[in-house]
């Protein structure tokens, strides 16, 4: 399984199903759910491979995304130093 260097938390019940977040995701790891949320809209589901680039959060009109990125680990920092 590909390790993700980022991730998002999606507030599913605030989503209005506009799908604006889907095409802006560079690695294409967001897709719309088959089922609907509490207000009747399909919402994005995340697969592995998120880079934490924040583009979904920049475009979402309903402020559904929180974005997280991995802090560079001590080991990899030493390797690149």
């Amino acid at each position: 399984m590909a390790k993700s260097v980022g991730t998002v938390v999606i507030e599913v019940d605030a989503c209005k199903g506009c799908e604006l977040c889907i095409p802006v995701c560079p690695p294409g790891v967001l897709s719309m759910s088959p089922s609907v949320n509490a207000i009747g809209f399909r919402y994005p589901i995340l697969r592995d491979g998120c880079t934490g680039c924040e583009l979904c959060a920049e475009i979402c009109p309903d402020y559904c995304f929180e974005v997280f990125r991995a802090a560079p680990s001590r080991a990899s920092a030493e390797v690149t130093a």
Partner: protein
Amino acid sequence: MATTGEASGPAAEMRKVFTRSPLLGSDTHSLCPGCGEPNAIRVLMETIEEMGERGNTVCVLGIGCYTAFGALMQIDCQQAMHGRAPAQATGVKRVLPDRLVFTLQGDGDMVTEGLQEIVHAAARGERFTAICLNNAAFGETGGHMTATTVLGQRTKSTLGGRDAGRHGHPIKLPEMLAGLDGVAYVARGTVHTPVGVKKTKKLFRAALETQRLGLGFSLVEVVTMCPTGWFVSAAEGPRFQEEKLLPVFPVGELKRPRDLRV
């Protein structure tokens, strides 16, 4: 209910890099799926927070869909009558010159109903910032033609498309105001792509810094999606905007004070 890619939530070594601005409160809003206005307002609130002006800002709201944000924005807000926000903001800024004062209006409010208000405020060089969310339609009342509706655009009052001979040409307000003395900063942004949203934030910063330095009147027009008023799906909004609106309303800075560093 919330969902993440990892069932257990973000792993401990992940750090949060993006969250909703505290100046937007925590309530949901009632605007349509795919509306462009919420992202323009989001980056505006982020800018005010980053400038440290949270408790020192007054917003004067026009009337349109964005007016609903008066209940979300965690700053002082006043409600103006349709199109009259520039006159009201003039009063606020003159009485309280140390506050950061901006109007939040639409094209229907600013360019159609209240054109003379904004033109005279600009010509007087009033030191507030005017923000126009231009979706080329009266959104809230159901998608009718405004002064910025582009030629060929279908609205409820131009079903066959706006026709130059019958309905006249769209008004490009930033281009019009940039030529006036007293106007210090004029720019146009877009929110139909993530890059556009980020650039619009920089334009807001430049306009509000112009105000903070007392250099004169500042205006930012932001082209925003209105899929409901354009009769397209939410997902089609960005493409419609790119193809139909942006050729008429090119983005960028039209006027900037020489002393402005941001």
